[in-house]
């Protein structure tokens, strides 16, 4: 036995160690990365002065701002825009996506422009939108939706187009009406594509909300963030940035949960 051990190379033993202790190593990696970053932040924060306050100062700042400050009122304003954007994305994205897949002439006519609009950086359209429609809530929604609707729309279109010919043929043979065809074939088939579009839309609607708030007369959380830059208060800006990041992580996590649920559903449906 002992001779066997000695003949093993260092690499083999390392590989075994990594497999046996994978769980602990993983935990240690997470812990180490967090400790190192926070430690570096704390140390740098003490040497850079007002431009980069330490982690602890940032956190107490965030706590103060949550207790009494512009952050929660701002969040309510942003949350409203976010909710409206997401709802429009889902309803309009799925409807238009299905129409584009089913009515070929409309698709042929408008698809090039949809792709061009998708590729164009929407921020550059903000001045035009504001001249045409003003700076009010409607304009914000328009900008926000233009930024975040395309993945769901294009995803649904592609999904509906990939319905196997046989499914449609079978439905036709059994004499399905257009209504039955949609209920029994198209909608169930497109559902996973729509869900994965919704997942992307959950993340992108946040981008849309922030852009609309930054560039059409600052409002909501974005305005709170800009306020910190104007008064050169790095504690303020860092606190709000971390706050937005936390919300983003939670929302993206919800999106991933939806997708995981969807994958399970897809497995049972197919298998």
């Amino acid at each position: 036995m002992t001779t066997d051990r000695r003949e093993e190379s260092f690499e083999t033993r390392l590989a075994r160690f990594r497999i046996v202790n994978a769980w602990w190593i993983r935990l240690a990696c997470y812990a180490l990365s967090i400790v190192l970053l926070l430690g570096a932040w704390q140390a740098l924060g003490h040497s850079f002065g007002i431009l980069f306050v330490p982690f602890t100062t940032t956190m107490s700042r965030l706590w103060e701002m949550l207790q009494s400050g512009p952050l929660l009122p701002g969040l309510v304003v942003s949350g409203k825009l976010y909710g409206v954007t997401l709802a429009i994305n889902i309803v309009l994205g799925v409807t238009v996506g299905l129409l584009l897949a089913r009515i070929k002439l409309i698709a042929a006519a408008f698809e090039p422009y949809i792709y061009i609009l998708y590729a164009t950086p929407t921020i550059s359209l903000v001045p035009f939108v504001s001249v045409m429609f003003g700076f009010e809530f409607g304009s914000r929604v328009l900008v926000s939706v233009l930024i975040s609707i395309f993945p769901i729309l294009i995803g649904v279109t592609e999904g509906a187009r990939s319905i196997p010919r046989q499914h449609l043929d079978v439905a036709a043979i059994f004499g399905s009406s257009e209504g039955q065809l949609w209920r029994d074939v198209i909608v169930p088939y497109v559902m996973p594509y729509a869900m994965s579009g919704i997942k992307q839309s959950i993340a992108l609607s946040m981008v849309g909300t922030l852009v609309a708030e930054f560039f059409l007369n600052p409002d909501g959380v974005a305005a709170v963030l800009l306020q910190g830059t104007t008064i050169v208060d790095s504690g303020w800006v860092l606190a709000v940035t971390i706050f937005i990041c936390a919300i983003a992580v939670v929302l993206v996590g919800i999106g991933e949960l939806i997708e995981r649920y969807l994958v399970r559903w897809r497995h049972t449906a197919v298998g």
Partner: protein
Amino acid sequence: MATYSSRIETAPAARWSWGSGIVTRERVAPLVAGAVLLIIWEIWVRATLPDFVARPSGIILAIPSTMASGEFWSDVGATLGAIMEGVAIGSAAGILVGVAMGRVREIDWFFSTYIRALYALPLIALVPIVILWVGYQPAARLIIVVISVFLPVAVTTADGTRAISKDYLDVGKMFGARTHNVWFGIALPSATPFIVAGIELGFARGITNAIAVEILASVNGMGMSVFTKSNELNENASLVYVLALAIFAVGVRSLMIRFRHWLAPWYHR
């Protein structure tokens, strides 16, 4: 078949002309739709909105004078130069970190918390803190573009190099491949389509975020000019800049698709 696949990528509308038999009708449809949209836009603005609001005829008339100015070309140079530089730096860094994350689980675990958090965060939220640190400078734009490209490239490279076929690794081992051979000789080439997809995504985000920084930090460039021209009530010139940005964005997109086909001809999504 080659023409078929390239047509799918560059002109989505042409997809329907294939096999449906009515080629002419579906070729003409986008032209008609485009003309109708432009005419509605023109008439609507003429009828209901003040004279300075951009309309198609005004934009076309504004193209020569806008493009003749030196300002336009210095803006184009500044913005596109910064984007190219940022994409180069961000991709290189993203590929290196991504390969390391994909091949060594511990490195993946170490970085994943931050990369996930930053990947979830709309990067526009980082603009204020970057402005605070580096000032109202072009450097802020470069930093944001680098981050915008680095994140998707690191994530896709990690995914691509993690998921390489065991057969490749076994063959490599048989021929005595060392770690760097596995990383850069096997993992990286087989992850090419992933990496290009990451760069493509990063490019799109980089363009958007570069413009965002220009406006928030008052850095000279195309995005800044879109807003200043609009504030000067020179809406048509502002839209000429938008048009130039759109052409650049669409051009980059189709170039990246060609690039992917050329680099990884075996891979068609």
